[in-house]
Every structure is written in structure tokens, then in C-alpha cells.
């Protein structure tokens, strides 16, 4: 009896500590959003205003005057979508070959690709920059999505997943006269939903947030993606007003937050199951 009570006070105390931790974690984002919704004159007043009064959308209206925000958002969307769909397509084909087809070199090529998981992007980026300069694709969106089409981790992850799907399913389809493309896209792909959605989330998120690639390859504002565009806000011409920068950051963070709140389980599971990032 006594022990139980001690335990529950301890438990209550721990709840309180966790609540404070959670509040500290969200405080920066609350401050971000409430400042960006404040009247430009009231923003950043001390003590901090946690609930903007009066509410104002002026800061958001000022963003497009400083950077081509709409164009940048579109670029981000195009690059992330093409990277995700394209890399999944390339990976699914390769994973099927490595998992199901016997051909000379299967294992050697697979292990060779796998060992490249250790190669950091910083090692390859200078030669890729030289290559793109020769192909004349520097400062185009192609330079951003083309290298993203090869995703060794996705190939590895999908091969493991395909290996866990019973081969009897393929055999039955083969007897019915199905070809490899049919088996892959009509049997294995539909059975690999969790793996594919986890990879899609990770790939899209990595592309959407990528800063290093655009920094190297892109120079014109109209070809920039959002992360790089955001940073130019503070640099150019003496820097932009902080509230407008905040409004722009909010516009970048808010869609991610909404998607996350809607599909939280899928996000967290994709990290927990396939939690290795480039």
C-alpha cells in the first residue's frame, strides 16, 4: 500500500517533468508561429507574446516581395516528387532482380552497391559538380533530382522485404504464365506497402529539406528550393525584416506539421523501421 502510493507520487512527478520537457520542445515553434502572425510593430516585444493580438497576416503578404516564394515551393515539390517516385521505381526493379533473379554477378554487384552506403555525399559532390558543369545542367532542377534517383539504402531495404515474401506466390503466377514485370508490379509491389510508404516518406522528407545540394548546384533565385531560398532571405541586401523571415519559415514548417499530425504513425514508423539516413 505504502509502496504503491510512493510510486504514484513519483509517477506524477515524472509526468510533470515530461510535460515541461514537451513544452520546452514546442516553445520555439509556438514563438515562431505567433510572432509571424503578429503585427510587424508588436513582434519580438518582451515579454514574448505567445498569443498574437491583434492578429495580422501582413508578414505573410510581404514574403513574395522578397523572394519568389511560390516558385521556390513549386521547385521543392517537383524535385521531391520526382526524386521519390523515380528512386522508388529504380529501386523496386533492382531489388526484384537481386531478390528473385539468378544471373552472373548478382551477389557481387549487390554487395558492391551496399558497401557504397559508407560513402558520404561530400566525397562525391565535387566530381558530380564537374560532371554537371560539363553537361550544362548546373543551376537547373535536374541537378537536384537526377543524383537522388540512386538510393542504395532503398534497394537494400526493398530486397530484404521482397525476400520475406514467399516465393510460392511467384511460382503460382509463373505457372499461370505471368512474366517478371507482372509478378513484380502485381504481386510484390502491392504486398510491400509498408516498406514503400516508409521509403517514400524518408526520401521525400530528405529531398524537401535538402540544403547542401541546392547550395552547391543552384545560383538563381527562381531555381532555388525552399531551404536555400529561406537562407537567402537573411543574407541579401542588408537582410530582410525578422518578422518576414519568420513568416517565411512558418510557411515552410506549417505544411510539414500538418502532414505530420495527420500521418504521425506512418512518419514515426518509417523512422523506426528504416531509420538510417544518408
Amino acid at each position, binding site marked *: 500500500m505504502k509502496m504503491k502510493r510512493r510510486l504514484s507520487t513519483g509517477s506524477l512527478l515524472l*509526468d510533470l517533468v*515530461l*510535460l515541461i*520537457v*514537451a513544452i520546452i520542445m*514546442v516553445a*520555439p*515553434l509556438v*514563438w515562431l508561429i505567433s510572432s509571424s502572425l503578429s503585427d510587424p510593430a508588436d513582434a519580438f516585444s518582451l515579454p514574448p507574446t505567445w498569443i498574437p493580438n491583434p492578429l495580422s497576416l501582413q508578414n505573410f503578404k510581404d514574403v513574395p516581395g522578397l523572394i519568389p516564394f511560390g516558385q521556390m515551393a513549386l521547385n521543392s515539390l517537383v524535385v521531391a516528387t520526382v526524386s521519390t517516385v523515380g528512386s522508388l521505381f*529504380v529501386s523496386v526493379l*533492382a531489388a*526484384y*532482380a*537481386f*531478390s528473385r533473379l*539468378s*544471373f*552472373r554477378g548478382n*551477389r557481387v554487384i549487390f554487395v*558492391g*552497391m551496399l558497401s*557504397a552506403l*559508407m*560513402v558520404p555525399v*561530400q*566525397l*562525391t559532390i*565535387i*566530381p*558530380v559538380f*564537374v*560532371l554537371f558543369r560539363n553537361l550544362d545542367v548546373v543551376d537547373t532542377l535536374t541537378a537536384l533530382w*537526377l543524383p537522388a*534517383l*540512386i538510393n*542504395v539504402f532503398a534497394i537494400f531495404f526493398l530486397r*530484404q522485404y521482397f*525476400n520475406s515474401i514467399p*516465393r510460392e506466390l511467384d511460382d503460382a503466377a509463373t505457372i499461370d504464365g505471368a512474366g517478371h514485370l507482372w509478378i513484380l508490379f502485381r504481386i510484390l509491389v502491392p504486398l510491400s506497402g509498408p516498406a514503400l510508404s516508409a521509403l517514400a516518406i524518408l526520401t521525400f522528407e530528405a529531398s*524537401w*529539406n535538402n540544403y547542401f545540394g541546392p*547550395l552547391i548546384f543552384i545560383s538563381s533565385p527562381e531555381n532555388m528550393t525552399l*531551404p536555400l531560398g*529561406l*537562407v537567402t532571405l*537573411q543574407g541579401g541586401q542588408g537582410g530582410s525584416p*525578422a518578422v518576414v*523571415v*519568420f513568416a517565411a*519559415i512558418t510557411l*515552410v*514548417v506549417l505544411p*510539414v506539421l500538418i502532414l505530420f499530425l495527420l500521418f*504521425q504513425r506512418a*512518419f*514515426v514508423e518509417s*523512422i523506426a523501421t528504416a*531509420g*538510417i*539516413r544518408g
Partner: protein
Amino acid sequence: MTAASAPQVLAAGEQQPAKPTSVHHKRQALYGYAFISPAVVLFVAFIAGPMVFAIGLSFVAWDLLTPSQFVGLDNFARLVNDPLFGKAFGTTFVFAFASVVTHIVGGLLLALAANRVMTRALSYFLRTAVFFPFLISWAAVALLWKYILDPTFGLVAYYLSKIGITAPSWFSDPSWSLPAIVGIDFWHTIGFTFVILLAGLQTVPSTLVEAARTDGANTWQVFWHVTLPMMSPTVFFATVITFIGAFQIFEPMQIITGGGPDNSTMSIVMYLYQNGFQSFQVGYASAIAIVVFAVIMGVTILQFCFSRRWVHEQ
């Protein structure tokens, strides 16, 4: 896992065509090559080829405009004698060490505290609040924190002054700039460590914990002798992943400090970027990239050897 499952799969694959005709075999091989060809072409163009090219570049002096010059091992000799590279190397290791310690200790504490009966609302709020910053791009995180840590109108300075502490001006004080970035990085990526460690913690059988409790072990003893050893592979994995990520730290330096003040936040990748893409010393930058690669490869091989030992022990 790879090593264990691959031979079985291959064995099954060899059994599968009961009596393969040579036509059947050829057809399968043809499909095999066709299916891997996009991946192989892209792999050669964007990973294997550039890697070989980068190794070659480390032996030349080149500014991307005038013809390159073979200089042998000069770039590596320069690395050894470059005090700024030495400083960046040391700073990066200090950062990575601080990042690993804060993430693992913080992540373990959070996971242990969260892995028990809680009200649904608190559990949801905690997981959302801790995990979400991980999904925000470094660009947004760095810009936001630059303002949060502003000495005049920032949140941190204000609340510290409330409890009687004068906040340093983080990014102009060489002794506070790196700790500030350690803190920002913690806020940004602790959610990842938390999710990984919580998943590992949930694989520890509760019967073991209960058995230890019945035998009279206290909370600390249960954690130290039962829980931690049982989840050690997960902790080790999280450590390696955190270290590799931290060793490549770049964005907050590039966006907030530019490596300063007084080079106190000059990381290796920041230094690589400055040499390769600002002063266009491509050969020297490639030599730096090879050092980064060597460290990551070393840590990965270490992980492979250790995790193998652990798998056998279990």
C-alpha cells in the same frame, strides 16, 4: 542480418528452377541485367565514378578553370601542416562527442520516462513535441534559433535574465558558439534518437524486468544489469548513427556562424565547402573529403565487427 539471410536466399534461388533449361536461364539473366541496369548506370555515374574521380582529384591542384596539375601527395602533406584543418578536425570531434553524449543520455532518459503508463494526452503530446523538430529542414531550424538565441530580443536571453543570468552573446563569443550549436542540434534531432531507443526499450521482455524486481533489485540495478544490456545493440546503433551524422555537421555553421567567431565553429565539412566551392581549391577539398570518408568508413567497420559479436552473444 544481411550476412545471415543472404546465403539462404541464394540457396533457395538455386533450388527453384528444378531443371532449368538454358533458355529459361538466359531469359532470367536477361531480365536480371535489364532490371538492374538503371540502378547500375546511376550508381556508376553518381557514386562509384565520382568516388574514383575524387580520389584522383586529391592528387592534383585544380581551380576548375585552368588545367589541373599533378602534385602527388602534396594535398595530404598540406592537410597535416594546416593548423586550420587541425582545428576543424578537433572541433568536429568535440562536437560529435558532445552530440553523442547528449543524444544518448537525453534519449535514454526520455525513453525510460516515456515507456510506462501515462495518460494518452500526455503521451501523445510528448511524442509529438519531441519528434516533430526532426522533420524540419536545417535551414529553417538554423534561422529560427539564430533569433531565439539573439542576445537582445531572443527567448533564451529573456528567460535567463528572469532567473538572474545574463546570457552570453552566443554567436560572437568563441567559447559559447559551439555549445550553442550542440544545443540547437539536440533540439533538432533528439526525436530520432528517442524513437530508436524507445523501440529498442520496448523489445526488452517485461518478464526479465519483473524477475529482477522480485529478486529485490532496485530501479537503478534493474536498469544497469537488465534493461541496458538487453538494449545495448540499439544503444550502440544509435551511437554510431549519431556520431556519423554529427561528424558531417555543416548547415548551422554555414547558415549562422560561417565557421566563426575565430574559427570556433569551423567543422570539417564547412572547411571542405570553403576550400572546394569558395576558393575553388578542388584538389585540396577532395583530400579533406577523403579524410571524412576514412573516418566514416572506420566507424562503420567498427560497428559491423561489434554488432556481429553482440548478435552471437545473444
